[in-house]
């Protein structure tokens, strides 16, 4: 396996929860662990940090097995959800804490704190008490403190979850910038997929104590390995495979498609931005490649999102989500989605395309 970065295989069991996760993070990467609450992502962080005891597996950091080292000798820093700024210390003392532990001279500490504060854009905050800081400021101080310990690995446990939306966006850019400046291997836990997609080099999706998929954000978004990942990482519509004969349109080609149904629950999935909307029933769908067409879909709701409208339409008892650049003028619309935008799953697991066209994709 990789000599550089983090490679872990974690096992731990609790009263009604078992964790068994394997993944790796390259040196200098910013990886996000994402999953719904209760999926074990925070536990994973605590196992890596050594705050919880591991039951088995291995934990390699830059080629060293750290699985049996006590927390304070692992060189892993962690930013906690509640920031855990020590209330009896001011900002400077908080940041200097790991430096003091390592017995750095006072002058060096001062200089280092000043540098870290400018890194997190909080110059001159040395003497403030943690109670006087805003949420965003606390978060940055916690980050600076974690960085002060010169960690080989930085763990961030939902660092932005307590902040408001605008600040969150700003701070995640900041975190990315600071990461790029310091180059520290970072594992970032979040439950917000937008945050994960925007910040991470690598995304690890967890569910029920297991890693569901690991990879780049684009890969995971466009080729989700399972229905769970598909629906968790962004929106989409899930429909039964059996609808295909009824809705398939193949303009320009006479050859029929070959259907290869499989054992198990066979479903199709597509993203709302890949759905075309036509609100004039006298006009055809502007689509000339093979696609599925849902006629006479009723618009249930239409939300203005700024750059587009988000529609929820009802078609033969199924709900189909789609994005439209305009507000439909009639309640009944025709929807279409290209065959090559469709992903197929059997029992929730991704499969290669079964819907084959002799024309080819």
């Amino acid at each position, binding site marked *: 396996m990789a000599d550089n970065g983090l490679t872990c295989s974690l096992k731990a069991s609790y009263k009604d929860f078992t964790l068994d996760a394997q993944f790796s993070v390259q040196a200098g990467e910013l990886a996000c662990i994402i999953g719904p609450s209760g999926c074990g992502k925070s536990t994973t962080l605590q196992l890596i940090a050594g705050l919880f005891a*591991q039951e088995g597996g291995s934990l390699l950091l830059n080629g060293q097995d750290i699985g049996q080292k*006590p927390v*304070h000798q692992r060189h892993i820093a962690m930013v*906690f959800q509640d920031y855990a700024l020590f*209330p*009896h210390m001011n900002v400077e003392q908080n940041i200097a804490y790991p430096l003091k*532990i*390592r017995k750095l001279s006072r002058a060096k500490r001062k200089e280092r704190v000043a540098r870290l504060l400018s890194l997190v854009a909080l110059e001159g905050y040395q003497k403030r008490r943690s109670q006087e800081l805003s949420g965003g400021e606390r978060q940055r101080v916690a980050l600076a403190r974690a960085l002060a310990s010169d960690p080989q690995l930085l763990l961030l446990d939902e660092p932005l979850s307590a902040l408001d939306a605008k600040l969150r966006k700003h701070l995640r850019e900041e975190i990315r910038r600071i990461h790029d400046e310091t180059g520290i291997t970072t594992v970032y836990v979040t439950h917000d997929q937008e945050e994960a997609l925007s910040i991470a080099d690598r995304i690890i999706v967890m569910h029920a104590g297991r890693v569901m998929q690991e990879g780049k954000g684009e890969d995971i978004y466009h080729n989700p390995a399972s229905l769970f990942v598909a629906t968790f990482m962004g929106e989409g519509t899930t429909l039964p495979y059996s609808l295909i004969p009824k809705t398939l349109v193949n303009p320009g080609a006479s050859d029929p498609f070959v259907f290869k149904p499989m054992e198990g629950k066979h479903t199709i999935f597509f993203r709302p931005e890949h759905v075309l909307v036509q609100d004039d029933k006298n006009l055809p769908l502007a689509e000339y490649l093979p696609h599925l067409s849902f006629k006479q879909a009723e618009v249930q709701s239409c939300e203005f999102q700024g750059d587009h409208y988000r529609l929820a339409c009802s078609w033969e008892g199924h709900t189909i989500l789609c994005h439209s650049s305009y507000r439909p003028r009639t309640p009944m619309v025709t929807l279409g989605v290209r065959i090559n935008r469709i992903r197929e799953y059997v029992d929730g697991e991704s499969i290669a395309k079964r819907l084959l066209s002799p024309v080819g994709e």
Partner: protein
Amino acid sequence: MDTGNEQMRKANNLQYKRFYRMVPLPSVAVLLLLFFVPLFFTLSSAFITEEGLTFLRVLEVFTDSYTVKIMLFTLWQATLSTLFSLLVALPGAYLIATYSFRGKRLILALSAIPFVIPSILVVLGFVIFFGNNGFLNRMLMSLFNLSEPPLKILYSFKAIILAHTFYNFPIIMSLVSSYWEHLDGNCESASQTLGANKVQTFLRVTLPRLLPAIISAASLVFLFCFNSFAIILVLGGGPQYTTMEVEIYRQARMLGNSGAAAALSLFSILTTTLLLLWYNASQRRLARSETYQNSKRLLEKRPATLSGKLLALFYTVSSFLFILGPIASVVIRSFMASSSRSATESFSLKWYRQLLSLERATGHMGSALGALTNSTLIALLVALCTVPVALSMCIAIRRREGKQSFLELLGMLPMTVSSVIIGLGYYLISARLRGGLALSYTLVVLAHLVIAIPFVLRTILPEYRKIPLSYMHSSLTLGAGPVKTFLLIELPLLKGAMFTGAIFAFALSMGEFNATLTLANSSITTLPIVMYRLIGSYNFQGACALGTILIGVCTIVFIVSEFAKGGSYGR
């Protein structure tokens, strides 16, 4: 492979756990030596007769209709006293938690005083203030020109309840109000926006949330009332009000029947331990039930409405009267002297002059100054020793959180056992250990330590439970080991609680009487001992003067602690 992993896991755990497991050992040793071993020997005599081992005596006590009757009365008076204390204390807790007003800190500081002065002084204070010839009655008699005292409060069941309420309501008030202050006020606002009026909000939202704090404070008070002795006999007016404690005393001291006394004690210790378990559970619930607010909620500057103002005023005045009346009587009495008893008494510094050796001392007054120095030294030592001991127990308890903490119960038990039984235990120690003055000092300090541990534990543990685990975890991930984390994070955060605990230990030690007398074989004279000697030799005013000094020292100490608390962070 598997075994390798298993070993690895253990190694990982032990890095911290060995350290924490060793921490409470000294405190356990002290408790064992000075409390559990003697208690065990004392209680074991319940099972040992001349014929050998028997359970008959214990069985007899538990089923005897007379003891059951006494037990029921003991429980009844303790329940009533607790209820009345709650009734008086809760409005006060509300005022203190909601408003900021002048005299608030003073009330809190004064509230601990009844707690540390010897019960005989409380009884005397009560008599001087509420008695037939007391201040209140004399005032009313001269005001309305009466020949008979109009207020016949004392020497009845009423008086027991009154005195217990006086003794205990301040404790409930300060415990509940400090919890209340930190409750998140948003729930109340939410309730009102949902259409509930103030009363409904209080009953349905605030009260249920306060309940753990109330239960915890009330069970503490119940324990004190349960073991009350002098107050019940003197102010109750006689043997129709007999509690378990009196019965234990009779068996142990008058009849020399330590077996029967031990059986009776076992009965009451079992009862109180059950209560303590409940108390403990409610304490833990308290720590878990609410996410404690880091900051006090914003206090309204002053009562806004007229009725609020009146309520605050009425409460402040009446609680001052209630707490201060009896205490002030003792203080005033100490400044009174007359050249002859038939002459009217007038203001005089006679007793204080004698105390400071400015005047030739009469009787025991001569040893008072030395006793004051002794008491202060011992109390300082006790305060310094109790805090680390209690702290070490807290650390161990915090690590085992979630499990029924045996250690926590261990530390609380000295509070439940009657002073007569503890006295017997100490007697056993002093009979076995013969030594010089140094040993006596050590034993006295250790005994005070055992007495103070439950209170200090009670002060530190809740604060400790409030420190989020993430602080400790954070420190560990930043490279500090468990010892450093403790010294740099936990210790500074507990500074306030430790200080308060030390103050409590100091005050308790200043007022302690029984253990000192038994263990020191009168080789050490402390302030309360001289006070009792003075009373024993008819000099009540001199005793009042010493009592005043005791009250003075405690007041200063408590006021300092209240102000120190106000300035601490993280609350």
